[in-house]
């Protein structure tokens, strides 16, 4: 039975889960949640995700939310399919975890705030805080300098293989390069750009882009 993924194909967090399921060859069915109509804030939805957010997965009777918990579960569940997505031993796994945490704590907030101020609020007819956006951009420059240095030493964030740590960045960077118009942050950095070209050309990500109609 296919895993049901409740969310939207445009939502960064839903994309994180779909990208992982595509990488692992796990059958899934995307069940669209109408965010514009506030479906995710209704009682029926809150029963499954009390924070009123997407995505949620339903695998038979088993339900999970929080995209990073979901991807970790599936990588562990199907470790025999693509074993290196979480590293091959405990030390490699710790490195993957380290860069997953970097994405969650040093990277994601800045991207989210940028996209909120530059894209989402204007779309809703509200003015974005350009000073805040600029401040995020400056902080992101410093963070990406660290990535540039890291990627001068190895091909991928956690080492020499593509892992969840790289995959987790795909949705956010796509937003940065497209709707937020901040592609220069990536293209100005040789190693970061090379890494982005590599990971965004993976068949699973290209399949997702097609699904999303980009």
């Amino acid at each position, binding site marked *: 039975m296919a895993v049901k993924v409740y969310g939207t194909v445009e939502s960064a967090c839903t994309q994180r889960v779909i990208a992982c399921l595509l990488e692992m060859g796990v059958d899934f069915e995307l069940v669209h949640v109408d965010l514009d109509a506030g479906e995710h804030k209704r009682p029926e939805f809150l029963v499954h995700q009390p*924070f009123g957010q997407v995505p949620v997965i339903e695998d038979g009777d088993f339900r999970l939310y929080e995209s990073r*918990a979901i991807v970790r579960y599936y990588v562990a569940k199907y470790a025999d399919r693509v074993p290196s997505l979480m590293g091959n031993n405990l030390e490699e796994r710790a490195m993957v975890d380290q860069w997953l*945490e970097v994405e969650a704590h040093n990277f994601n907030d800045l991207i989210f705030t940028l996209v909120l101020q530059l894209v989402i609020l204007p779309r809703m007819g509200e003015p974005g805080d350009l000073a805040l956006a600029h401040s995020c951009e400056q902080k992101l420059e410093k963070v990406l300098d660290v990535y540039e240095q890291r990627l001068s030493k190895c091909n991928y964030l956690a080492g020499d293989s593509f892992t969840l740590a790289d995959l987790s960045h795909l949705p956010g960077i796509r937003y940065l390069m497209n709707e937020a118009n901040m592609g220069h942050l990536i293209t100005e950095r040789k190693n970061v750009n090379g890494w982005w070209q590599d990971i965004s050309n993976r068949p699973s990500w290209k399949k997702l882009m097609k699904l999303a109609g980009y």
Partner: protein
Amino acid sequence: MDQMRPVVYCLLCLLFVLDHITILPIMAAIKVHGSPLSTNTLRVLATVYEKELDHEFVLIDMSAGEHKKEHFLSTHNPFGQVPAFEDGDLKLFESRAITNYIACEYADKGTQLIYQDSKKMAITSVWMEVESQQYEQIAAKLAWELVYKPLLLGMSADTAIVEENEHRLAKVLDIYESRLAQSKYLGGDCFTLADLHHLPTLHYLFGTQVKKLFDSRPHVSAWIADITARPAWLKALALQSQQ
């Protein structure tokens, strides 16, 4: 007497040597670099104590900006943040990656902090993400305004930011209240990293006006009383008064 002289001579040589050699300390394989005032460092220290692991705590002088200097950046954490961690040759940063590593590597020692069963671990993992994505950002903002700003910068809190984040925290805590009415700990029946990760910010917020938000929710309040009384947590906190 003549037969005693070589023996005495040997003993004297031995004593001389013992007086002059440096007894090398057994170097702990595990090192935690950070500050006992830092929530992220405390998260790792609590885990190390729960697992009863031999370790060395290396104090980083944050007021002197040690964590932003070249040596720290190149050796321990290029993002210039604490904690940093070593276990033999393995070097890590990001507190939650460190606690996860410790919980797995030393699964057979001290308190069991994760589940071996994949579905139970997945549920625990959900609440670890909730702490990281829903709770921490709000709690850290409140701790900054109400604790660190006055303490470190002598500045008063921004009341608008405090009010907004108290409101957000109340909503999150309603969800916790609901969860803890069904489950003794966030991940299930046992104390795990999902609970432990909350300890440092909880500790700071308890000393502020935000305490009322926790006290007014009976299941949350009982859970906090339980987890903050754990000996390992108290040991980690004790480092604050030693420095």
